[in-house]
Every structure is written in C-alpha cells, then in structure tokens.
C-alpha cells in the first residue's frame, strides 16, 4: 500500500469553477492511486441560487450515478469517512475559482520594488488591480482616500519596507488606508493582506484590524530590495480569497468546513502542484502550465524551486471577451481562422460570448472563431507573463519562450476540442514552444484537485499523473532557424523498439509528424541542418528516448515567432493544411 499521511485511501475532490462544478473521485486500485470518475454540474454561485451548495451537491450526485457509490447522505451532507457499506470517502478536498474578479488595491513604497511585488502577488489570484498607492504618488492624502473609496476594493495588499528597515513611510500609507476603510460602510470594508516589513505587524494589526473584514499577515514579499519571495504570501492570499468568497457567496463557508478549513483557490492549488512537480523534476527541467477557462487565463511556470503564477481575469473565454479588443485587434484574431469571417461577425461574437459565457460553438464557423480567440488570448497571456520569468531561464533566442521540457494544458476550449489534433495545434500556435517539449492535456481539469490533495498526500498526485489520467498529446520538436522558407532544416529519424524506422526531412515553414502510439517507445534522433537549434546549440544533434503519445512526434518548423503570411488567402490555406497535418 502507498505511504500516505491521511487515513484511508479514497479522496473526493470538488472544484467550483465559474461555469462548472466538478466532483472527482480518486481511489487506490491495485496498490496505486487512480483517478476513478468525474461528476459535473453547472456552478450555482450566480443568481437565482447565489449559493454554490446546489451545484456541489448535484456534481457529487452525478458522480454517485457514475460510480454507484454514495458520498452524501439523505440530508445531502458529506459522509466523511468510508463506511462498511461502501459509502463515504476517506478524505475530501475542494478548490474554488467561482465569483466575480476581486478588486484589489495594492499599496507599497517604491513603484519598481515593493509595489511591483505586491502587483505580482495580486496577479497570482483571480484579481484585478484597481488602484495603486505608493511613495511616488503625488496625490494629496484625501485624494488617495477618495480613490480607495471609489474603487470599493475587496482586498488591499500592503507591501513595503525591508525587514527591520525604516517604517515611517509605511505608516503614512497605513494611515490613508485606515481612514478609507473607516469611511466605507461596514459591510463594504475590504480584507487586508500585509506582506511588508515584519516589524510593523503589531501596528498593522492594531490600527487596521478593527476597520477591515479580515486581516492577513504574510512574510515580507520583498525581504530585501534585491529579493522577491512571493511563495509564502501566496498561501495567505489564498486564505484571504476564501474568506472574501465566504462573505460574498453562500455555501462557501460550508464547503470550507467540509475540507476542514483547507478550501483553496483553484489557481493556488494548480500552482502548488506545478511547484511540486517542478521540484521533483529538478532545476534542469522547466515546466509550463496554461489553463484557459471561462473566467480567466492562467499561466504558471516552474523553474526548479521557483514558480511564477499569473491569473488574467480579463483574458478568459467568457465575460472578459467583451474587453479583449483593448489588448489586440480583430485582424490579429482573424489571422488564426481557416475561413473568411467578416470583422463585424467577429466583433459581434465577442459580445455574444461575453453575454453567454457558458455557451459553446454549435457551428463550424463558431468553432473556428472560438479557437481563434483561444489562440489570441492565450498568446497575450503568455507574452504578459513572460516578463515575470527569471532572467536566468534558458532561451534559444531573445523574445522567445524559455525552453520548457513539459507543457501542461487545460481549460475546456483546449481540452474539449473535437479532436486532439485541434487541441495540439491550438497550443502550438498560441504557446509556440522552442526546442523539445512534451505536451500533456488535462482533459478532466484534475490539476487543482491534485494540488489540493498534495498538501496532505504527496503520493497521490504523482501516482495519478503516472496513471494515464492525463493525455500525453505529443512530443514536439521546434527548431529555431534563420534559413529561408522551404530550406531543409531538420532530419528526424524514429527508431522503434521493434527495429523499424520512420524518418522525415523537415523544411523551414513546415509541420510534420512521425507516428508513435501510446504504449510504444522509441529512440528519436534529430539532426538540425543549417545551424538550426533544437536546444542543444546551433547545428547540434539530439538523440532521446521518447514515449508514445496521442499524436506521436510533431516536428514544428514553422518558425519562432510564428509569422503567418500577410496574404489572407494563403494564410487560410496554411491554417487548413496544418489542421489537416495534425489529423483534422
């Protein structure tokens, strides 16, 4: 039996998303943890329910129907330990992303030091920074107070001051925040997260605690000017998020009780599992996780012990789409389409989808538009979050993504695409990985559940990840080359374990595949031509063992960055051709 610090073996995990609530069952089969089944229901955080409880219970009841097991009793309460009759579960975890985007005020001292870190921290959850207060702010104190009142924030994140450093400037900031909180109606007062000079903790508590809905103290996110350390504060931010949701949405308090006070924001749990895996794989393997949901786009990158987390509520595939044109153009979206769609139709689509964020495309044209939007939003999210990646992360060329060994992808527009080829092409277009990468699809959105479970059972996530619960989409080789279009830049040879071989020459601008089914293994020899680089240095070959996957080996020599032809007809033809190459 696997070592586990929790008693018993079965785990029921619930994730309350903006659109869908999922109940997932994990249990031990043949001595190893497995993902067993999933039950889903629409989330009921919004009117008319305004209570997530109904959606949670429906999702669990649907899971009961699938598994034939009973997890809630006749009073619809969770049966919290396995019973002799087979009902109940040994452990329960829950994560939540439902609810409107948190409005956050960040306050600190220097704009490119503590304020920057406070923004980074706020951006690691479902939040939008609506106001900023700092030393460089030339407004009068009364104007700053009014700006906070008018922003009516859910949360104020305060950073600033090195541990043991000066405190006078921070006291001025606290004074403004205290007065603003005092002036707000009691039921509108924000939560406060303090992550600054730790010697100020007592003063922060005594001056602000009576004026806030809840107060949270975290270790300094900027313990010295040179060091940013967000990880400890993320946990406290997660707790603040849950406390805010408890006040905003009925049923959250009960769900938190079911977890024994361990309810987590989904993004935090996802970050935890990525951090966990990142440490497991070591410093030489960087990991990327992207998730494109109805409420937000999430980008997380693990570099050994370091983790960057970015949640972009304005880049979700739902309500946020109405504002997407603030960040891109209709032409940029249209470049991903394999058919001609008038700009007005695209524009109308953005607003219609924002109006009905849970709706799905029912025609081919709508599906093309939806996937084009997914490519564009994900690309913007990646380009934005790339600025936070450590400067030491290896890149093949300035401006490109660092070399990622593994890319984990989730979100229904990606994972529920009609074919796995469409999922892969969407990711290749949007992420544009360089070098050699394994792309894995989280079809059941298990990552938050595994992250929540990891706190109490470190074996479960590893065994579930190894169990085939995720779809290994492809091993992708993306060379970087300056050769002219059509010039051969890569020679790939796949030697199967039975001794047979497949090989292909790839030209600059081309996209090719070599079959290697799930369950097969082979040796992949890749020889770059004309000084093309696949991560080993210009012109240097690579020979690696590869496991089979849904789409085998994909050789993507279309260029990084991927520059699509300006001619619309030619571009649409290429989009169709690539679509066909990965299986339609």
């Amino acid at each position, binding site marked *: 039996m696997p070592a586990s610090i929790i008693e018993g073996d079965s785990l029921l995990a619930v994730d309350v998303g903006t659109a869908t609530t999922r109940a997932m069952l994990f249990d031990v089969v043949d001595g190893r943890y497995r993902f067993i089944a999933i039950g889903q*229901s*629409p989330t*009921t*955080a*919004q*009117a*008319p*329910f*305004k209570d997530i409880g*109904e*959606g949670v219970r*429906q999702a669990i009841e649907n899971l009961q129907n699938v598994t034939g097991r009973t997890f809630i009793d006749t009073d619809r309460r969770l049966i919290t330990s396995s019973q002799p009759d087979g009902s109940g579960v040994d452990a329960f975890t829950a994560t939540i992303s439902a*609810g*409107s985007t948190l409005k956050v005020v960040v306050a600190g001292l220097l704009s490119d030091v503590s304020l920057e870190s406070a923004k980074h921290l706020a951006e690691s959850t479902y939040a939008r920074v609506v106001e900023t207060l700092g030393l460089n702010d030339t407004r*009068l*104190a*009364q104007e700053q*107070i*009014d700006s906070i*009142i*008018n922003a009516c924030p859910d949360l104020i994140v305060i950073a600033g001051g090195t541990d043991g450093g000066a405190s006078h400037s921070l006291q001025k900031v606290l*004074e403004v925040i205290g*007065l603003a909180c*005092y*002036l707000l*109606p009691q039921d*509108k007062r924000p939560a406060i997260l303090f992550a600054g000079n730790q010697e100020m903790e007592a003063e922060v508590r005594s001056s602000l605690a009576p004026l806030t809905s809840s107060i949270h103290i975290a270790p300094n996110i900027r313990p010295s000017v040179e060091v940013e350390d967000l990880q400890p504060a993320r946990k406290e931010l997660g707790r603040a998020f849950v406390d805010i949701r408890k006040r*905003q*949405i009925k049923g959250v308090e009960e769900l938190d009780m079911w977890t024994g006070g361990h309810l987590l924001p989904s993004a935090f749990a996802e970050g935890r599992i990525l951090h966990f895996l990142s440490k497991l794989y070591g410093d030489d393997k960087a990991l990327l996780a992207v998730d494109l949901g109805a409420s937000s786009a999430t980008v997380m990158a693990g570099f050994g012990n370091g983790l960057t987390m970015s949640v972009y509520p304005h880049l979700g595939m739902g309500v946020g789409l*109405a504002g997407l044109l603030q960040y891109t153009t209709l032409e940029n979206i249209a470049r991903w389409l394999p058919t001609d769609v008038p700009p*007005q*139709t695209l*524009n*109308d689509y*953005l*607003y*219609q989808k924002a*109006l*009905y964020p*849970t*709706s*799905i*495309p*029912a*025609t*081919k*044209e*709508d*599906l093309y538009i939806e996937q084009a939007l997914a490519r564009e939003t994900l690309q913007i999210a990646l380009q934005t979050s790339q600025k936070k990646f450590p400067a030491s992360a290896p890149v093949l060329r300035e401006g490109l993504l660092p070399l990622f060994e593994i890319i984990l992808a989730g979100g229904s527009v990606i994972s*529920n695409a*009609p*074919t796995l080829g469409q999922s892969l092409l969407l990711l290749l277009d949007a992420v544009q990985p360089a070098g050699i990468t394994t792309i894995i699809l989280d079809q059941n959105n298990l990552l938050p559940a595994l992250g929540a479970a990891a706190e109490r059972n470190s074996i479960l996530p590893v065994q579930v990840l190894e169990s085939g619960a995720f779809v290994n989409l492809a091993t992708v080789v993306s060379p970087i080359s300056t050769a002219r279009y059509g010039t051969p830049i890569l020679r790939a040879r796949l030697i199967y374990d039975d001794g047979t071989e497949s090989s292909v020459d790839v030209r600059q601008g081309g996209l090719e595949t070599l079959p290697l089914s799930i369950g097969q293994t082979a040796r992949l020899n890749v020889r770059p031509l004309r000084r093309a680089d696949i991560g080993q240095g210009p012109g240097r070959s690579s020979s690696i063992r590869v496991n089979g996957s849904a789409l085998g080996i994909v050789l993507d020599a279309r260029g990084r960055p991927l520059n699509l032809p300006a001619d619309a007809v030619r571009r649409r033809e290429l989009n169709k051709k690539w679509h066909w190459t990965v299986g339609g």
Partner: protein
Amino acid sequence: MLAPVTHILALTTIIRKRLLPAPGRVVVKLNQKVSATDVVAEADFAREHVLIEVARVLGISGDAADRLITCKVGEKLAEGAVVADGGGLFPRLIRVPRAGRVKAVGGGQVLLDVGDTGLELRAGIPGEIVEIVQNRGVVIQTSGALIQGVWGNSRIDTGLLLSLADKPDDVLEARRLDVSLRGSILLAGYCQDAETLKAAAELPVRGLILSSILPALLPLARQMRYPILVTDSFGRQPMNLTAFKILSTNSKREITINAEPYDRYSGTHPEAVIPLPVTQNPSPPRDVETFAPGQQVRLRRAPHAGAVGTLVNLRAGLTTLPNGLRVAAGEVRLENGEQTIVPLVNLEVVG
C-alpha cells in the same frame, strides 16, 4: 440539468427588492403606491473628503493638536470655518477649504465629508411597497407584463409604449423618428447607427426597446439620458417573437424601462414592465428550472440565435454536433416548425 431562466411573460406578478448600497433611510411607507422614478430610500455617502492635517501645519504633536481642534464629529461646517486655533502672539487659525460635515477627529487631523453626499434609490418599477427593509430599502410588487433583456444603459423612465416595428427584424432609422413620438417609449428593431440614438435624444423619447445593437454603439448608448433596453443580442438580430408579440399587443399602454445592467451574481436584469389590471395576483415566475420537454426555450447561439421554440426531447448521453463537439443536447421545435438539435448550454428557459 439546471436551466437558466429569462422572464418574458404577458402577465405575471413582479416582485423586486431594492436596496441601498450603504445604510440610510427608507422614505416610503408600507402599502404605498410608487412610480418607477420615485425615490424610495436615501443615504448619506460622501465620495469626496478633505483631510486637514492640523498637527503637521502647526508643527506640533498629534495629541497637542487634538487639544486645539474646536470642531466635533457630525458638525456641519461652512467654507472657511475655523477648526483649530494655533494660539500664540500671531494666532494661526486653521480653516476648512470647503463646506462639509466633520467625519472624524483625532491624531491631529480633521476629516470632512464634502461635495454631494446624497444617494437616492429609485423604485425601478411601478407598484406597491410590500416590505420595508430597515435602513436599507424596500420590496415592491406589481402585476403586468415583464420582458427581461440582455443589456441596459442604467437609466429608468416611464412613458407610453409606441411601436415603430412592424416585424421583429425591423431596423430603427433616424428618419422614422418624428415629433409625434416625443415623450414615448419606442418598440423598435435593431439599431445600427449613432444618428438614430442621437435623434431619439433630440426629440426626446423616454426610452428605446431594441432587439439588438451594434457593439460599437454601446459607449454612446451609455451616454443617452433615456433608457435603452436591448432584448436579445449584439449585432443585427431580430427580436424574439415572444417579446415582440407581448410588446406590440400592449402598444399605447404605459410602460416602464429599468435599464439596470445585467449582473449574474445579484440577478438583476434590464427589464420592461407594463402594469396591467388584475382581479387576483397571478403566480410569480419561477426562477429555478431544470430542462424538461415542453418548456419554451430561447436559443442563445448560432444557428438560430435568438429564436424561441419548444424543447421536445432531451437526448440521452452525448450528441456529436456538426462541428465535432460532443455535448448534452436537446431537440427544439422552432416556431416555423423546423426541428433542430441544440446543446443544452446554449438554451435558456423562457417563462
């Protein structure tokens, strides 16, 4: 599966809770009749403040400054009024730069509420006050036709309903707006140019009910001082037949548009209410439904976006759509008799 519900009803009981965002005073009485634009509650909530830093100005400690401050919390002060006297050979008087009310005193500082502090809550629908929520607001009830829409520009008004649309896909154009329509609320089709919105403002009308509107016109529509209710969509889409029939058959009746924005979490919708006389209150509409055959449903997405039909069957398992997606789906008979398969997530119950 749980179904989203939009209310488009020829006759129902409409109950709306209207609450202030901050504690205040309810200014109406139980059983009082109100019109949509009547103020039902008020609050004082300042969005502008003045902070007078007495200690800093006088160069003394906070405690010392507090002893010199002469105003008290709650006191109303005129512009130029003295709040602290520095004393000494050449007395330094600290005055308030703007009229206001003292909100806090302490730590050598005086904080004042200034500017417009009044916050008024309007009824939103005509009807009778059936409940008072102490210090916060009221519950209002009326009977009549109810049409909920998808977008509103946050204005409220009441007027006579006049129909400018002969059919659900009519286009509203500026040239059709003449002086005979002044002061009325117009049932129109879709709006595709700024001139039409401006012409309606110049008349002025008391409201527009549109089937759809071009997204590019939304910033201008928000600026219009008359309410605009969009019933169905963005772009160019006809009005759903159910709403069109109810509105066109109630032409020349008084109608109220409360074009408050749609909020998924609070459940507020932009809506139009036509009060109708009843001998007995009809049942209020159901807010919670699960999909079931026989329900009237509206299709949210292409093809047939905006069309209303009857859900005739819930298909077992997952259905593969023409684009390859596999989803839970239902069969819907449209009003033209055509039967189509629609993902359940693209449907909403109309009732």
